[in-house]
Every structure is written in structure tokens, then in C-alpha cells.
């Protein structure tokens, strides 16, 4: 595993959830479940986060907030939708103010179903996200190398 996947930082946002999954996400960070054993730290700052955990479906008002938080996170980043509402809209899908799952607004990498999602399932989802994060980092690095090599040929011609 690379450096990033050994200590990823987690950001949690409540789309329009009932709190059930939110407190389970928080419960993951506390004793008994203790997600910190994977080197994961819960942060409140999107600019320093690698993994975005979203609970709940998206409504007309949280849409722009979710988009903004996502765009503030540095690349590479992974999104985990926690709970059935975040996956599809769930029991709230027919509500007048629910647009649907998180993937209606931003790309989602890992879906964790459940109402409410159990801490074990959330941790499993996050650990799967770590592998994806590592993959994305490698792709991103390769892409950067490609760009640099193109630049390298140009600088080689200068010599």
C-alpha cells in the first residue's frame, strides 16, 4: 500500500439523512469499532480529506453543498455512499423534496446499503474505498508522469 492509503483522512457530510447512519459513522470512529486502526482520521476540513462519506439522499438544498464539498477535495478522492438513502433514496425516494441517491449529483465509488448501515458494513466500505484510492493515486501518478515525459522530450530537444 502506498502512503495515502495508509493514512487517509475522512470527511463526513449529512445529505438529508435521518441521523441513523450519521451516528453509526461517528460510532465507527469511537472505541469498539475504532476505524483509526486503519490509520483513518475523521476530519472536518474538505481541503484535507481523501474519502468523502455521505449519508442520506440529496434534496434541492443540499445539492450545491455536496457539489461544493466534492470540488474542494484534492485529487485523488473517493466517495462512499452510506445507507440505502444515499445509494438510491431509499424509504424517502417518493418524498417531494428528494432527488434520489448521491450519484445523481456526484460520482460514487462505493455503495454501502442498510437502514441504518451497520458500523461493520461502513468499515468494510471504507476499506474497499482504500483500495480504490490507491488505484486512483497510481493512475493519477501515471498520468502526471505521462505529462512530464511529453514535457521531457521537449526539454531534451533543447539540449
Amino acid at each position, binding site marked *: 500500500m502506498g502512503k495515502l492509503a495508509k493514512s487517509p483522512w475522512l470527511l463526513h457530510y*449529512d445529505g438529508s439523512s435521518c*441521523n441513523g447512519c450519521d451516528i453509526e459513522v461517528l*460510532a465507527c470512529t469511537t472505541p469498539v469499532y475504532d476505524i483509526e486502526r486503519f490509520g483513518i482520521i475523521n*476530519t472536518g476540513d474538505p481541503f484535507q480529506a481523501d474519502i468523502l462519506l455521505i449519508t442520506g439522499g440529496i434534496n434541492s438544498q*443540499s445539492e450545491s453543498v455536496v457539489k461544493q464539498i466534492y470540488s474542494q477535495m484534492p485529487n485523488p478522492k473517493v466517495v462512499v455512499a452510506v445507507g440505502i438513502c444515499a445509494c438510491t433514496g431509499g424509504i424517502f425516494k*417518493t*418524498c417531494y423534496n428528494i432527488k434520489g441517491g448521491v450519484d445523481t449529483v456526484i460520482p460514487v465509488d462505493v455503495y454501502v446499503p442498510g437502514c441504518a448501515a451497520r458500523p461493520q458494513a461502513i468499515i468494510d466500505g471504507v476499506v474497499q474505498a482504500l483500495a480504490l484510492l490507491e488505484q486512483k493515486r497510481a493512475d493519477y501518478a501515471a498520468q502526471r508522469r505521462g505529462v512530464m515525459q511529453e514535457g521531457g522530450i521537449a526539454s531534451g530537444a533543447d539540449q
Partner: protein
Amino acid sequence: MAKQSIVPFGPQHPVLPEPVHLDLVLEDEVVVGAVPSIGFVHRGLEKLVETKDFKNYVYIAERVCGICSFGHGMGYCEAIERVMNVEIPPRAKYLRTIWMEMSRVHSHLLWLGLLADALGFESLFMQSWRLREKILDVFDLMTGGRVIFSVNTPGGVLKDVDGDMLRQLLRTVDELQKELRPVADSFLREYTVGSRLHGLGVLGPEQAVELGAVGPMLRASGVRYDARQLGYAAYPELDFEPVVLTEGDSYARCELRLRELTQSFDLIRQAVGKLPEGPIAVPVKGNPDGEYFMRIEQPRGEAVYYVRANGTKFLDRFRLRTPTTSNIPPMLELLHGCQLADVALLILTIDPCISCTER
């Protein structure tokens, strides 16, 4: 007059697990005005009652909020039962009481943890949540769920308990009471906690009533009102006195919740001791017709459930006025004149539950 500036607070904020937004008007470091804007988690759940069978709506009602979920299911069912004149069996009443008090224990421990987190007291946060896991384990054992239980139904409850579960519950309560002592001492005696909480956000009794405060907010200001005295579930047969404190500051609200924890332990022990044998539900036939305003005491305060039925299986109207809706106006009052650094703490002392408020 100093120059005024506006600082946005939220919706994504490290201290708050839930999205709420405030525009704080500041003069230097002092807050002189606060305008709340809500709606980040508004889903429109009250509307679903028009398209869902009234028996199935219980599952929606308890998903209004994942922390107060048991109470919402119970409040809705009690309102329906009163409209339909259904008397539920005594065992169901006691089981509801036991689960309601367990919900209070888990909610208050959760709040204590969040308070410690807002103070930056990380180990105390971890300790409170460690204790909370114990009561969730018993919930898991008794109902099969950790935060959403789905055990209420109009006419009673859906799951029965056996002797092993009750023994496990009593063991856990004893354990919690013992282990809570050092945690409670840290909250009440620790100099660092006290210096942040003493005298912060004082709400007088007249002011509390005028602004419509409910629950621990109201009782910490010296008003003796606890909706459990209204006589629903098995509360009329249990012996308890509302906890009332008079200081009205953040420290009093913290102390009050700690004392309510002990009260809940006592109520659970009483209810388990008196738990009668018998059926856990009666069949509910026909459709409701009529209306009723039901009040129950949630961990955060009094909640109102209004049901209006028309004789079909779809209700005309379901209205839920949650404790936080009532506690936001007093909170705004407390914010006037406080320091910017105390804003998060003051918001937290009302124990806000935004998904309840916006439904």
C-alpha cells in the same frame, strides 16, 4: 459602534454532525444577531402519510430521526391508538417504557460525547461513546437493531423479550451506572469543563416559558414540566420525579442530563421488576377516524404528534412538532451577546436534532 461583520456558520461544520446554517452578525468577537437558515435535510415526510397505509407509516415516522427513532414510532402509535380507542396490553406498555428509557440513555450519552468533543476533550468523548455502545448492544439483543428498531405497531409492540435479555439489560444498567461515575465526575468537577460551561448561556424560567423551550432546556431553567407525567405507556405506574435545576446555564443543562441518566437507570429497573406477563399486542381492526394531539417526552424534550384521520386507511394529516423546533428560538436568544468561540458550544447545549426539526 464597532463595525459589524457577518460570519457564516455551517452547514458543514466540524463540531456539528448535522447540517444547519447560521448567519452570525458580529461586532468584534461578540455575536449581536443570528439568523438561522434550515432546510438542508428537509425531505417532506409528513406528506407521505397521504400515500402510505397508516400501519406502514410507523416505519416512516421512526425514520424522521435515527436518534429519537423509538420515541417517534411510539408517539405516532400512541396517537393512532387514542384516535381508535385501542387499549394496548400491559406488557406492551412496559416494554415501550423500557425501550424509551434505553433510548434516553443512549441519546444523553451521545450528547455528552458531542459536548466533550466540542470542548476539545477527546478522551471524554471516547469514554461517553464507549459507554453508549453497551446500551446499543442490549438494544441489538432485544430488538435486532442498533439505531432503527421498528418494534412499534398500532396495538402494541412486535417483539417480545425473554428472561435472558432482561437479565442482560439489568447487568448492563448496573455496569453503566458504575462506569458512568468517573465520566460524570470529569464533566462536573473538571476545571477545564467547568470554566467553559459555568454561567454560559443563562436562560431564566420566565424567559424559557415565553420562548417555548422544552425538555432539559426548560427543566434546567427551573420549570417543572416533564411530559412523562401526562400518563402514557407505563409511566403512571412508575415512581419518578422530574429532575429540575435552577441555574439555567450550560453547566446546569449538562448536570441535568447526567442526573436524568441515573433516573432512567432507575426507571428501567422499576419497569423490569414490574413487567407483567401476557400478550404483547392486540389486533387493530378497521380504520381510524378522528383527531388527537399526543405529547410525549423525548430525550430532547416534549414532542407533539397530531393525527387527523378520515375513516380510510390513509390519514389526512400527520404533524410532528419536535423538541428542537421549540428549542431553536431560545437558542437564538442565548446566542445574543455571546463570544464567537462559544457559538458551537451553545448550539450544542440545546442538543439540536436537525433531521427531526426539518422532517
